[in-house]
């Protein structure tokens, strides 16, 4: 069956089974491979995208449920918070193997879009759904704080 999706501001029609998770639609059918497969049961966060601005695990969200939503994958990130997060990731050399980092960036961006000045506890709460087996957690935390500083300094809470 055909489904009309809005991803990164563009309309995509895909003809797949309705139970196919959004993850596999974007990866296998739309060739957006930045979103990663890690667990298939919303345990690791590697597949995180923004659905109407909310960090969402796409491995358990069906294509049928994705219709009519505003979906942003890592390829479509544009907000100043996203840019600040990605710059901090480079400056602090956050990624190691890097496989989980798309999901980490998506979760961190969603956090900063909602909370421009998160505490350590806020960061733990927002990020503990994203597993990193390389253990980049200290640098992820530092990266979020660096991005928050840049953002709040530059935009003065314009979020």
């Amino acid at each position, binding site marked *: 069956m055909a489904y009309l999706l809005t991803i990164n501001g563009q309309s995509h029609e895909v003809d797949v089974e309705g139970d196919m998770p959004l993850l596999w639609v974007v990866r296998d059918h739309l060739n957006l491979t*930045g979103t990663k497969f890690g667990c298939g049961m919303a345990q690791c966060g590697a597949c995180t995208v923004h659905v109407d601005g909310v960090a969402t695990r796409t491995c358990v969200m069906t294509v049928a449920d994705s219709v009519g939503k505003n979906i942003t994958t890592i390829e479509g990130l544009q907000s100043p918070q996203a840019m600040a997060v990605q710059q901090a990731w480079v400056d602090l050399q956050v990624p190691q193997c890097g496989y*989980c980092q798309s999901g980490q960036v998506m979760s961190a961006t969603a956090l900063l879009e909602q909370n421009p000045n998160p505490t350590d506890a806020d960061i733990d709460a927002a990020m503990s759904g994203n597993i990193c*087996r390389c253990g980049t957690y*200290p640098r992820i*935390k530092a990266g979020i704080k660096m991005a928050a500083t840049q953002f709040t300094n530059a935009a003065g809470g314009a979020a």
Partner: protein
Amino acid sequence: MNIRRFLKSDAAAPDTSRRAFLKVSAGASAGLMLGVSFTAPSALAQQAADTGMEFNAFVSISPDNTVKVLIKHLEMGQGVYTGLATCVAEELDAAWDQVVCEHAPADVSKYANLLMGQQGTGGSTAMANSFMQMRQAGAAARAMLVAAAAAQWQVDASDITVSDGVVSHGNHSASFGELAVAAAQLPAPDRATLTLKTPAEFKLIGQDNTLRKDVGKHNGTAIYTQDVKLPGMLTAVVAHPPRFGARVRSFDASAALARRGVQQVFEIDTGIAVVASDYWSAIKARELLQIEWDDSAAETRSSGDILAQYRDLVETPGAMAESHGNPDAALSASSDVTELMFEYPYLAHAQMEPMNCVAQVNGDAAEMWYGCQSPTSDKAAIAGVLGTSGDKVTIHTVFAGGGFGRRANPASDYVLEAVRVARQIPNTPVKLVWSREDDMQAGYYRPAYVHKLSAALDAAGKPSALKVRIAGQSIMAGTSMAALMINNGIDNTSVEGLTEFAYDVPERQVELHSPQVGVPVQWWRSVGHTHTAFSKEVFIDALARKAGADPVAYRLELLKNNPRETAVLKLAAEKAGWGTTELPEGWGRGVAVHTSFGSTVAEIVDVSVQGNNFKVERVVAAIDCGIAVNPSIVKAQVESAIAYGLSAALADEVTLTNGLVDQTNFHNYRVLRMNAMPVVETHIVPSTNAPSGVGEPGTPPIAPAVANALAAVTGRTFTRLPLRLA
């Protein structure tokens, strides 16, 4: 610029002519173009623009001034791209921002690990074996650039300087790119003529150079096996037997074949393969398979039964791994003996990218795309399955989403599975994808072990004799490395860390039982040290407490003849405020120090205890890894190694019930998350010694340091992982 004459002389005397050619090139306003038009009309220019001019196996330079470094090791997060490129750029005097990296092809003749004799990544050897080789590669390319400039400018090479990617002499200056075509055609200099920098001259080594943004690990553009897309590619999943060693008895694929997108279902050595147009179609079709398994050769025991067998084994003499003096006599004569039993579970690697591999088989040739950690042995295994020779196997190495040992599988398990699927669908690229459940339940775990340690104590409470017995599966047994790695029945990876005991104990011996169990096992970040360091450091701590001694002071006494561990332990203790800072009520501080992969790491841990729960609050680490080529990466690796080891200390455990693996995914194999990650401070011991391992040595001390911190609060000795207060 008489090309005709030049051609003639070239044929007669190539060496002279090459110099003449360089002069001709230099004299021309479009010198490079002239050289190109002679040597290989357009082809050289095209090659130079496409792939750069090859200076040697590791260095190419393009006219656009890009220096490409071929990386012979797999980049799986440990930082080999940055680290090895730093060594090249240092001696090349390149500007850091002109350097890009690419995985080298699978070619043992050029890219062998000098400590392994084959191309492969592991044992924290990437920098240790490459440090001189990469620097020499950079220095050789630099010498060729200088020679080319000297010829062009007709000046003495020794008067030419190179800095930040610019070659200069007086009023002359040229970028690497401008000299690349001419320089790359010069003969490679004799290695003996190369003068490498002294540590005092390093500009890039020792700095926190960063991995370039364009590798795309911050924006999703980095390509892993999972992301490889090829025209006409199909996706395969395999239904594996639920018990290790089981086989397919019969299967019915009719329902699976009816699922949309499914192309083929067939049996291979390791199970039933479902091949489809995409992953979801394949995985849903797999659920529809009706398979009857033959368990007659399967491992059907529970992990509890296996550990019970090991507990019995350590009460009996094993094969002698190491023996000094007569500890048996000392133990029976002693009136003060301490004895502890330790237990360690099976552990999954649980790297973030579940195992996967892209294979295409065309006749007797195979082309592969994956995060290949062991090119030489994988290549041989692939050739073996296809009945062909290694030169018919091409491997394209892409980034790996974590490894921690798993990707260097001695049996090339997931690689061969991909080949076995792909050979059934010739001339078609097939991506084998494991689900998380497949990955978690596929075995190749860190083996389970039981240790028994017994010490006779002298009047001062110090161990005068130590006897160690270890029971657990051999990682090397049955692999192609068995002949090399198992000596007199001893697999060194089962005992390393307890043999060559760091502490001064006059009489000691280590015995080993290596029972055969049907659970596939493999190395896991820091291999034998994952368990031996825990027994050693928890045992020493228990002896210190029994003696009423301070755990750091007690260790330092026993390390009098070990200046390196002494220095590292003292540094960590000082930075952690050992003995000088007060801890809040309910907190405890623990220490461990261990040497592995050529490096020494000490870790001091603060824990807070509330009822039956505890949290690791802070870790202060000190590492001596020789020259820290990139201190930021060294610190990142120590943090990473701590996180990985802490995950196992707190929660990781694979168990089996009647041969079935109980854990399936991250909800019941509970790895470390951000909310349990402590603050980590890492201090690097300044050194001018050659670099030693960094990826693994931070892992062994963390679990015993946590256990010892818990002991400081509770007074109890913790001898089982994962750690539980109740």
